[in-house]
């Protein structure tokens, strides 16, 4: 039994189907990269796993426990499934430290001191402890995204969903964010990431899934999907990536 089982998930916005019966399994400590053209459903899939979108069909299970459908405590679910967004979404009216401790204090009921100690330790680990008292708009995009990752980690999630976390960053800031993801992968964090960074996907992924028309069109180990894909549409997608000098 896989850690995260996604079976036959359907989701449509109006008449337009975004996910059309998608199946995907993620094992514990696996890093799964979702690639594919924009609009193929990568972000929607991640939002459905986190309960930010309700699915219209199929089911998602974590540890064999069904997390979709009525009666699921989504607040409890989200404590275990962290998500980091493309646009960081830090709370602009709070300092970095307040951003990080908000959920541990209000949701997990940790004492403020305890939460702050842990937050400072995490921020120090990524070299942002000197920014703890600053507001998000005083930080660079890369620093904001690193802080957003720390905010998600402050809840000690069992799985982390990363939604194109480097797409809104200037090129020279991408590596500082990817380094954290690399460290997390080395520490054994289970991660599901939608990304356009093919080189990075090749390096950290245990499995790459090519999404197309709302289903997993082709999946396999990185060298196979990025080196020698079997299906025509995967090849076409990679050809355009290579034309744009992104691989």
């Amino acid at each position, binding site marked *: 039994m896989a850690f995260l089982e996604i079976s036959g998930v359907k989701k449509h916005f109006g008449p337009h189907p975004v996910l059309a019966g998608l199946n995907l399994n993620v094992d514990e400590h696996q890093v799964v990269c979702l690639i594919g053209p924009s609009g193929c459903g990568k972000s929607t899939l991640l939002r459905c796993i986190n309960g930010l979108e309700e699915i219209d069909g199929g089911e998602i299970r974590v540890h064999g426990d069904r997390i979709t459908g009525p009666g699921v405590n989504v607040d409890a679910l989200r404590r275990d499934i962290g998500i980091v967004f493309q646009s960081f*979404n830090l709370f602009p009216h709070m300092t970095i430290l307040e951003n990080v401790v908000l959920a541990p204090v209000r949701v997990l009921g940790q004492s403020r001191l305890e939460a702050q100690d842990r937050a400072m330790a995490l921020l120090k680990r990524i070299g942002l402890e000197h920014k703890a008292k600053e507001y998000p708009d005083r930080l660079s995009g890369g620093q904001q995204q690193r802080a957003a990752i720390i905010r998600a980690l402050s809840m000690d999630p069992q799985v982390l969903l990363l939604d194109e976390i480097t797409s809104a960053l200037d090129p020279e800031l991408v590596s500082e964010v990817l380094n954290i993801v690399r460290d997390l992968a080395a520490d054994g964090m289970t991660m599901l990431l939608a990304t356009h960074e093919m080189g990075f996907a090749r390096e950290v992924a245990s499995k790459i899934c090519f999404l197309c028309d709302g289903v997993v069109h082709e999946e396999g180990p990185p060298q196979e999907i990025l080196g020698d894909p079997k299906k025509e549409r995967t090849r076409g997608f990679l050809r355009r990536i290579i034309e744009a000098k992104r691989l």
Partner: protein
Amino acid sequence: MTTSGDKTHPSAIGASGDVALHGAVALTRTFHAGTPPRNPLPLGLVALLVTGLVVVASWATLYEVGMALEAVQAATPLAEAVLAALGLSAVALMVPAARAVRLARAAITAQAVNDLIQARVKGAESRNSSLVAMGFAGALVVVLLTVLLFVVNNLAVSRVFFYIPLISSSFWLMVKAFWINIYIFMVAEILVLIWGLVIAIARMAPGSAGRPVRMLATFYVDIFRSLPGIITIYLIGFGLPLTHLPVLKDLSQESLAIIALTLTNGAYTAEIYRAGIESIHWSQTAAARSLGLSYMQTLRYVVVPQGVRNIIPPMLNSFISLQKDTALVNVIGTIDAFNQSIIVASNNFNLSPVTTVALLFIAITIPQTRLVDRMIARDRRRMRIGGS
């Protein structure tokens, strides 16, 4: 040259027959900056004439003011010195006009030796000076007319609205009654801030379970926004004591006024809150919910604190209007400043006490409007910089 405007650029059609991306619509353009400037002298002369007339008019007005002062035995040497100084400074109005004429002549001289650039520069400066002179003259005319209004007909207007002896004898009575307005305003404002937020959150109650709550809140807002405040005050102020309901019938007039103002103003404030809360992008809610915060926690810690920041200027505006609405409580007989001033005014057949109250309202309102202006300007600046 306009004649060559329809000629296409030779490279507009590429070798392959495709339209080139650059130079596809090629016009030969020339820049015309060399036409001789218009003669600025007539405008300068007009400015000189206008300002001269206005200076004479201000002397005449000051003379009238001097006569009026004499009539009320207020023509002290100091007052006369002030009038004389004003008369002299009025001449300053002609300085820019004279400068305009001087510059216009310099422009004509430059044009005569064919120095086009110099002629253009001097001409533009001259025209600008003329316009400055006439702008000030126009504003001064309005001021003079206002002053005249106060002194004509043996100071009739001044006596009706600004009768100094009555103003000074009733001043403290008005100030004391004004405390009632301030008390009503302060309590009502605190209640409005709380009540408005409750209504705003009710109007946004989620899901189909929240539907009846939403409808009720919307109904309330619709009703109280369309009712004139004065009618609400009248109905509640006179109506509740007549109901003989326990507690409600024993409330003081001030408390009834506070209830009425809270109900009216709360409807507006709820809408301001709602606008502020809705201005927060959905991604903030998504981020908060994704961390496991509940709906109410998300409102409490993430959405409302940010929304409130965005609505401080409109909220202060609504404070100011509530402050002024406290004068409406006179319809139920509360002795606030306005009602007190009406009593004194009718005893003395003179409106000056009401003017005192008007000035008190102005005195507390203007600083607040300036504060709002400054906050709006600061917000704009911050957004231009690209802050949060």
